[in-house]
């Protein structure tokens, strides 16, 4: 327990010392919010059936974006680099359990993602007086499920890819189209029908669906498909990442 706390705290400091990941998790979503906010203001995005202002649609979408980015980039890169550089090798000579190493990573990225989302929500509230019709606990639960199941993808990539470079490239190749096509960067309704069909195959789509639904106060029951997919991903992620974990 002591080692888990120490390790999590250490990894948090290292995360914040890495300017790129800190920027994309904490700052970039805010920048996106301000750009879109200055375009649409408090109107709804034209072409969506949302009764909410644009910001109310964008915050859950950008939350999905943060989850997608942190799940694929820092998780994958950190773990793959640690393995490649022999950092895990050094850890292996100590009594520390691999579960502690994995858990510390999960906690750090989870907390950082949460922080990014919190900043986003505060900015939405303070700057745009965004309307929130959901339940805070329900939203937090949805966020937790989405984050954890998405981190699984990062862990799997880190475990399966031969080296850090490949892991990073594969993560990027997966991430960018997914951000655009899943509706995390802008509402999916604005995209052609054919493109919308593709999005059904992207895990991030289910994150966007669930979070947008919970934001406007829909019940979990109306999102069984999304929840099912995400829980499946979570279980798969845990099993595969523990199975594929290698010290070197």
């Amino acid at each position, binding site marked *: 327990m002591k080692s888990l706390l120490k390790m999590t705290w250490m990894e948090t400091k290292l995360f914040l010392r890495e300017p790129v990941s800190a920027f994309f998790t904490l700052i970039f979503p805010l920048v996106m919010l301000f750009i879109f906010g200055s375009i649409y203001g408090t109107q709804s995005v034209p072409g969506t059936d949302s009764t909410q202002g644009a910001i109310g649609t964008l915050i859950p979408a950008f939350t999905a974006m943060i989850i997608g980015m942190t799940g694929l980039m820092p998780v994958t890169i950190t773990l793959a680099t640690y393995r490649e550089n022999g950092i895990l090798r050094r850890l292996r000579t100590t009594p*520390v359990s691999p579960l502690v190493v994995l858990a510390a990573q999960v906690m750090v990225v989870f907390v950082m993602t949460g922080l990014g989302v919190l900043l986003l929500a505060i900015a939405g509230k303070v700057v745009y007086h965004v309307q929130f019709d959901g339940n805070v606990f329900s939203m937090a639960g949805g966020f937790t499920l989405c984050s954890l199941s998405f981190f699984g993808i990062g862990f799997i990539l880190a475990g399966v890819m031969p080296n850090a470079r490949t892991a990073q490239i594969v993560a990027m190749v997966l991430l960018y189209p997914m951000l655009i096509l899943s509706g995390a960067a802008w509402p999916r309704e604005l995209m052609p029908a054919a493109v919308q069909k593709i999005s059904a195959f992207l895990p991030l789509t289910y994150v966007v669906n669930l979070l947008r639904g919970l934001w406007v106060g829909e019940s979990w029951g109306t999102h069984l498909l999304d929840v099912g997919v995400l829980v499946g991903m979570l279980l798969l992620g845990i099993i595969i990442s523990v199975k594929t974990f290698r010290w070197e």
Partner: protein
Amino acid sequence: MNTIVQVEGLRKTYGAIAAVDDISFEVQEGEIFGMVGPNGAGKTTTIECLEGLRKPDSGTVRVLGVDPQREGQTLCLRVGMQLQQSNLPERMKVWEALDLYTSFYPKAVDWKELLVQLGLEEKRNAPFSKLSGGQKQRLFIALALLPDPQLIFLDELTTGLDPQARHAIWDLVRDVRARGKTVILSTHFMEEAEKLCDRVAILDLGRIVALDTPAALIHSLEAEQRVIFSLDGSLPPALEKALSMAGRLEVQGEQVTIHGKNGRKVPLVSEVVSLLTEQGINFRDLRTEQPTLEDVFLSLTGRKMRE
């Protein structure tokens, strides 16, 4: 004395290469035990089999009485390891690394004291990537000492360091031993093995070709002591004849080298000097060279350690 490490018929192959080919030895408590040999001799493979990081193909290994493969978890509480290849995150600071690693052990020594002992106090807040090679090594030694281990492995601890840093690390290792710990180290510097180790195993191509104290290895070789001097002009035939009786003669321009066997009644150098003065020959730059482990390796394998 207690036996700390016991290795019997250890083998480890990678494809067609036998990295370690039937190695047996024992290490006693309080020893500095060295493994020396050229690149690829099998030092790291042997050490990492003892550490439980690699699984031997066959043979038995006992470290502190247990099998590292089966009881690695208990072993890493009592054994300190410095690996030939490992790293810390670039932006992790020296004190943070020590603090973090301390939390892994139920009982650890105070890292602040280690920091002072290893001369890293000034570098306390330096990130790992900004440390020099010697400082990184010292940090890794500090990490290895954290659990207050009975046994410490140091794989290639001075490779890439300048002579001054190397001597500082030697002092450190002697210090560790003085505190009652057993040290197993590897090196490809014969001089390091000779100066630092109580006993040395010379490895070549996965086998131990010799194992003894450095002094005994050099002695058992009956390695040649050498006397070297220079002459003005060429070697007179009479002297050449007389000198060849004393030992094998080698002439390079003005420089003459006589290789004599050890264990002679009269020391080679006095014999040579008396021959030179008897015949009234002017010589200069006379010196003797003792055989080293380097010569032992050469005579055992027919090859030089480093080309």
